[in-house]
């Protein structure tokens, strides 16, 4: 797929009719096919078409046109981010030229040799410089055995410290619960007690959830954070084994079970209809959501809400403050991409150009570049408060431990399965933790064997 074949309906119909050997499509020619093919203006001689696989909102049509205007030799073909298609494209040896994806968890791809080391590009670039990269970018680094050092296999567009909280002061007032501290972390046990006070039930229904954890998004992230906060270890030294039997892991697991059994928030056993906290939080039906800095950006225009919301530091279990990011969305260039230089141009545009500034100004997470941090919005009172909390929180940032031999999704699935059993009291917490350990270790072993 060096050059995408322009799709012409007329040609297709003519061909189809010829192949079919019947004039059955004659009548259709007056239909949609009479519209000109939508391939747009023809590319200049020697132009390359790069294929990008991004989320549908990551780059607007106007931004693509702007990029193409500034880089006359480059055309963009847009594919929507779709893991199944990415698999297929990688397997066929024709991957996209640039792909969106999180930094945390990228070691699985990097260990499998799927991504390009971008260090040479970074060394030469006038716009993206190593010194300017926020520490979150270290999750994209891979030295062949662990993250945090070695080459850069991707660049982060933005991130949030995802364990931080947002809460609705109106619901706090109603329940006569004092506001959370802007600087001091709330212990998890206290947080659960607060959540119980904020929860309002009516018969079998829950009118107001005390606390949302975005259960569907990550379990390994928050649990690993809790383990780190207690000074524990998640993986062994060579990342081939996980240990959920440690006291720290069991305490984290126990907290999740307590949370679910208290019925103070959505879980996979009591899901929200749309799978994320936002609409429920917006509907004043959730008092606290564990959602990270970016979440506040949802309410820039919602005056009713943004007068009532505040951000709070990541809660703590144990005595070490750790506030990692569970994702850190960014972009990477596949190892077998055909147009890496052109893809890098798009990387520069996307990470440091107008789209990056636009994102920063909207408060859409903390930019992956230090130089963009000053652009974060501080106009409204709630934005000022959140900015201060987020800036103070940065000192507690730490990379989340990860093993290259397993995907984040697979970890979450294994944990959720046993959590459900423990919540339903089919298993004790100890037995469930043992089962998680066995199951994830099995996957780690399989992964290790594949990667070598």
């Amino acid at each position: 797929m060096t050059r995408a074949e322009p799709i012409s309906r007329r040609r297709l119909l003519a061909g189809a009719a010829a192949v079919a050997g019947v004039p059955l499509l004659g009548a259709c020619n007056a239909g949609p096919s009479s519209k000109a093919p939508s391939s747009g203006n023809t590319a200049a001689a020697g132009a390359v078409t790069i294929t990008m696989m991004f989320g549908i909102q990551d780059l607007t049509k106007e931004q693509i046109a702007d990029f193409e205007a500034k880089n006359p030799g480059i055309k963009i073909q847009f594919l929507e981010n779709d893991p199944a298609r990415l698999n297929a494209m990688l397997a066929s040896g024709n991957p996209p030229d640039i792909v969106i994806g999180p930094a945390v968890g990228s070691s699985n791809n990097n260990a499998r040799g799927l991504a390009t080391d971008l260090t040479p590009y970074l060394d030469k670039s006038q716009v993206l410089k190593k010194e300017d990269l926020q520490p979150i970018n270290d999750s994209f680094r891979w030295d062949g055995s662990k993250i945090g050092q070695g080459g850069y296999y991707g660049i982060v567009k933005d991130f949030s410290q995802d364990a931080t909280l947002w809460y609705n002061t109106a619901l706090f007032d109603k329940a006569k619960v004092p506001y959370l501290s802007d600087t001091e972390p709330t212990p998890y046990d206290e947080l659960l007690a607060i959540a119980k006070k904020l929860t309002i039930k009516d018969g079998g229904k829950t009118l107001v959830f005390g606390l949302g954890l975005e259960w569907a998004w990550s379990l390994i992230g928050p649990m690993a954070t809790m383990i780190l906060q207690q000074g524990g270890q998640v993986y062994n030294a060579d990342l081939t084994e996980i240990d959920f039997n440690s006291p720290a892991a069991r305490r984290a697991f126990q907290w999740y079970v307590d949370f679910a059994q208290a019925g103070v928030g959505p879980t996979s056993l009591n899901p929200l209809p749309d799978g994320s906290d936002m609409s429920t939080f917006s509907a004043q039906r959730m008092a606290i959501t564990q959602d990270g800095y970016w979440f506040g950006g949802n309410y820039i225009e919602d005056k009713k809400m943004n007068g009532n919301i505040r951000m709070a530091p990541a809660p703590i279990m144990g005595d070490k403050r750790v506030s990692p990011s569970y994702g850190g969305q960014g972009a990477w260039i596949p190892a077998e991409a055909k147009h890496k230089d052109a893809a890098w141009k798009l990387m520069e545009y996307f990470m440091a150009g107008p789209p990056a500034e636009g994102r920063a100004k909207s408060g859409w997470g903390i930019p992956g570049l230090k130089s963009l941090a000053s652009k974060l919005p501080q106009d409204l009172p709630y934005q000022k408060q959140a900015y201060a909390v987020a800036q103070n929180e940065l000192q507690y940032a730490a990379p989340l431990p990860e093993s290259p031999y397993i995907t984040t999704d697979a970890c979450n699935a294994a944990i959720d399965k046993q959590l459900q059993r423990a919540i339903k009291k089919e298993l004790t917490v100890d037995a469930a933790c043992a089962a998680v350990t066995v199951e994830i270790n099995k996957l780690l072993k399989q992964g290790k064997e594949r990667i070598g």
Partner: protein
Amino acid sequence: MARRTWSRYPRRTFYLFVGPWVAGFLLLTAAPLVYAFAMSLTNFDGSSPRWRWVGFRNYTELLGDEYAWAALFRTIGYTAIVVPLSVAGALGLAVLLNRRLKAVGLWRTVFYLPSVVPVVATAIMWKLVLNRDAGILNTILEPFGVDAIAWLIDPMAFYALIILTLWGLGGGMVIMLAALQGVPKELEDAARVDGAGRWKAFRHVTIPMISPVLYFQVVTGIIATLQIVVQPMLLTETNSISGVAGVPQSTHLYMVQVWEEFFLGNRFGYGSAMLWVFFVIILAFTLLVQRSSRWWVHYEVNSDADR
């Protein structure tokens, strides 16, 4: 009926007629199948070039995979419930609508409509209807003293899935309707004149006449139901691929397990092996039904007679 000679059936004609399918089969089915079989003999992860041949190890592992077997038996049980219900339901609806009714087109559309609602809309819709707190179903049940039911988790999720599947039986109804249109009214009338009751006429005239289509519905119903994967996934918290993790135990069907191996575990080799085994199992089921069809399916011409 006299046995015809081959001159009535020139071989070339048959091959010409089925030619499109043969060509399509070789290119679009057989070739990918060979690839998929090769994949099942590797530890391929779906994307990286680092894979090895592992022989039949995936197949031997499957023999001892208790999750897979549990999912398989669950799937068979689910099929045993859903297929009879949906075939009977589709037939019942078709009979109701195969009469002179006011605005018959509207009625038919009403019952067909659910089967054309796009999957994504179906998902949103049922989660809205079945949600414990905000769902309409619990709101409707409330005045009857029913406490809020958590429809989307065990054990109710199983019934929710059955409801959702049966809701889309309009597609089957259309086929039944077309079949009923093919039954000569005169035959049924003749039976009624001979003194048979309405039910008897239906049972002894209509059913045999449409038995080829009933057979079709049963076979395709079994095949489709065994392979259900999207619906249980969509009824979970997220619609994403990782949503497969949240599928409740009671609706964790075989294909869900396969999906988990493919897209959560990145085990394309093992997943392909699971599918090949499943394919053989479905084949066996179908042959079983086909065996039985000799006793209850009535054909005008015996199209199975020749080989």
